[in-house]
């Protein structure tokens, strides 16, 4: 499985996660491990349970059975904000910035969070102005030109590309160890994606572990170290990107089977 890295302790691992909605079995016994500093992709056709998996791990949905370990700590069933406080951030597939606030004020909220205050070092004495400066710094890092008006625009007026970046910036602001990216590439043009890729590389080099759900396989494979494929809530393959995509069951899942 985690070839070459099996000696390390995984930063995140799940054991047999299952979840059903009513009669629909959304996740069946999903287990995987992610190691520190990796870019781990999760692929699969629509409705294969990718987003549900993220929601389960990050505590937005209760898991029926199975366990989630973060740095060997059992975080199963924790509340979402506690999991985030431990250092697991996530983006949302449906982007919803804090619409009525300017872009940089959007970051005040994660920067205010207990985790960011603890790590950021401006705890307690944090003057009002301080967080604003940090927010603009983060935004610049993520590709909002400081000198332009963009960081000061109301979030709802930003174009899609910037909103996606804002989602990522919101994650970075809490200083996470793992970021779950839920389809950050979807809806972006080729050039916008080209602009995003260096960001991913940068986060990776900063030591952040990335777990990316994607439909845009080609772009994903440029950055991913390993991928896992889901279909109908079941894990069907895991390993090096180009090995997984050649897997018979993955092809069947994407293209349909020809056997009756």
């Amino acid at each position, binding site marked *: 499985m985690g070839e070459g890295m099996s000696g390390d302790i995984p930063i995140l691992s799940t054991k047999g996660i299952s979840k059903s*909605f009513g009669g629909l079995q959304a996740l069946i016994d999903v287990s995987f491990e992610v190691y520190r500093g990796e870019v781990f992709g999760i692929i699969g056709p629509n409705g294969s349970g990718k*987003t549900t998996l993220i*929601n389960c791990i990050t505590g*937005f*949905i*209760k898991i029926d059975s199975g366990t989630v370990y973060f740095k060997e700590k059992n975080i199963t069933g924790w509340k979402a904000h506690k999991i985030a406080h431990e250092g697991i951030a996530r983006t*949302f597939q449906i982007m919803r910035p804090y619409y009525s606030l300017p872009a940089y004020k959007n970051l005040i909220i994660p920067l205010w969070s207990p985790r960011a205050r603890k790590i950021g070092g401006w705890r307690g004495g944090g003057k009002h102005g301080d967080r604003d400066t940090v927010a603009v710094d983060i935004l610049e890092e993520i590709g909002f030109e400081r000198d332009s008006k963009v960081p000061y625009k109301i979030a709802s007026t930003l174009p899609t590309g910037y909103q996606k970046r804002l989602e990522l910036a919101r994650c970075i602001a809490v200083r996470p160890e793992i970021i779950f990216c839920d389809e950050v590439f979807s809806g972006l043009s080729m050039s916008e994606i080209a602009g995003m890729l260096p960001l991913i590389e940068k986060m990776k080099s900063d030591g952040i572990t990335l777990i990316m759900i994607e439909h845009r396989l080609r772009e994903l494979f440029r950055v991913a170290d390993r991928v896992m494929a889901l279909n109908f809530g079941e894990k069907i393959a895991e390993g090096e990107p180009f090995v997984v995509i050649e897997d018979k069951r993955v092809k069947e899942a994407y293209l349909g089977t020809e056997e009756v």
Partner: protein
Amino acid sequence: MEIIVYGIINSITLSLMALGFTLVYSISRLPNFAHGALYITAGYFTWLFINKFAGFPYPFAIIAALALTSIIGALIYRFILIRVRGMEISEIIASYAIGLAILEGLRWGGLRGMTFTLPTFVTGSFNIMGVSVDYQRIIIVGVGIFIFIVLYLFTHFNRIGLALRGIAQDERAAMMLGIDSDMTAIVSLAIGSGLAGFAGVVLLPLGNIIVEVGYNVLIFAIAVCVVGGLGSWGGTIIASFVIGFAQILTEFFLSSHYQMVVALLAIIIILLIKPSGLFGKQKELEERV
């Protein structure tokens, strides 16, 4: 025995009160907080027709009053609610304000005291299994069941009814199929008001037409609908039986003071345990990511 008989009667009474509210909410997602006011209005109109326009036969007065109430409901939507549609809070405040205006207006206009009563349809009473029940209550039960059946048939086999159900399920898809959302909302509000009025006309002969009843009816209707899950038909009926029996039981063993407490407690408990109501179709809140 008494508990069962009166429990059933009380439950059907409650579901009659709640029916109009559920119908409007399930079709057009409008919480019609003017519900209680329309209930009283219908009773008052009937009284007016009988007593002020002498010679109006009772059944005719009822029909005229119901028609008027329906028209009021339609007008409320056409001129007021249509402009705040989709803004939940404005809908609540606006419809509540209208209801309040109607009720307090009636109170100011002289709707006070015990003078306003409607005659029962048939007087007298008879025994069911050792419990004496008057005919009016029998009529309520009969009428209640009849209304359920009619509404069920209407929404399942009639063109307009089907359109209403379509809107209830997916407004956008229904609009694409050429169903006018505003028109159905008007119709639903008219029918809902008519039902509120109908409940008023049937139930009010048991007591006086007083403004306080209007507030109580609104609370009971909301209680039943919230407990059953806003917009769920089956839930409404089951919830009215749950609350109905709970009320009769408390009345039997404690005192009638607790009737309202039971209804309110039911709302609070249900919302805390299962916010979408017993049979609500909305996803549980935590899963709405």
